[in-house]
């Protein structure tokens, strides 16, 4: 009986918290291009954005698609290599869900793999943009924070967990052929 009431109370609290959060979205700090953003696991510095059909490899695709490319500098501050940047840096298209972006390492002009700890790298993240939606003059890039838990709530295992966005950056979109 008490356990049932407790469960009911818990779900009521969690439901009202969700409602409250939906009604009062947290204020995300607006940052500028070129400013270093601390996400917890990464330092991210967004540089420029552009649109075109040629990916950073310089080799045009056989079936060109509209691409939105964002240049940035990153440093992995954790103790292990990682490449899951697509959850950290996101953009959104109006009324569409974008596919997962591809990251290119500027050093190699090729697909980026792991980013080693404490090694600053410049990279370009590339999103395929829907063909029927025009690319706006300005895109908003959202940078999500991550926290390290020494023991997670399920296994007691250590790991990095996604948190709220830590910054929003407006970048003008250059038009490239």
């Amino acid at each position, binding site marked *: 009986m008490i356990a049932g009431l407790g469960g009911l109370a818990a779900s009521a609290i969690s439901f009202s918290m969700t409602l409250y959060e939906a009604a009062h979205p947290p204020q995300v700090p607006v940052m500028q291009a070129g400013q270093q953003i601390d996400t917890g696991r990464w330092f991210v510095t967004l540089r420029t954005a552009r649109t075109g059909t040629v990916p950073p490899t310089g080799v045009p695709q056989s079936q060109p698609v509209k691409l939105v490319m964002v240049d940035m500098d990153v440093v992995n501050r954790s*103790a292990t290599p990682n490449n899951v940047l697509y959850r950290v840096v996101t953009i959104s298209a109006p009324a569409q869900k974008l596919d997962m972006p591809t990251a290119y390492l500027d*050093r190699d002009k090729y697909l980026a793999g792991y980013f*080693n*700890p*404490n090694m600053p790298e410049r990279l370009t993240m590339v999103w395929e943009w829907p063909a029927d939606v025009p690319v706006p003059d300005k895109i908003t890039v959202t940078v999500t924070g991550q926290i390290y838990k020494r*023991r997670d709530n399920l296994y*007691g295992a*250590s790991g990095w967990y996604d948190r709220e966005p830590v910054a929003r950056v407006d970048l003008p979109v250059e038009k490239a052929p």
Partner: protein
Amino acid sequence: MMRVVRSVLALMFAAFVLYGMQHTRPLYSRITSPIAYSGGMNKRVEASAFALSLDSVRVARVLNTETFGKSKTYTSSGVWVVVEGEAEAKFETLGLTSGEWLSGSGVRYVLTDRVPATIEMMSGDVYQPGLPRRVLLMFEMPEDAVAGGTVVVARTKLLPLDDEIRIATNVSGKDIEPAITIRRNDEGPPWTVLPQR
């Protein structure tokens, strides 16, 4: 009344014990960590499923690759570390897909995924029991991670409680060559590290 007090006390005691255990017991990652077999350079280190020895560690600022007439230069914001040795499976054919450089301060660097697959790195090969095979491992890391580093090799990163060989390298991190070239050979050993020394 006494019964309520007693059960409250028992609950508090249980919570206290659990809290204490949560904060004193080893981490989950520690409990499920691989079983390490350690050794030094130029020695054959045996794990239960495979054996490994390392004989050369070289550090360079730039890595060049030459494969099938194509050459490419790989720069880095740190240095390249090229490790060579020999690996052998003991009882069954296996792959050694996980190679890591554990720096003195505990930071991990994995085998680079930048160089082309035509250069045979340890992770791409298959090891047959009784047939020792030369291995090549390439890492990219900041300069200060080189000194006192340990090479950690395992069959895979995903199997808890599997074997892992840890070989402490004796590099000082001071002897940095300007450039190293890895050439893929058409015959003989699968690769050559240049300049030879």
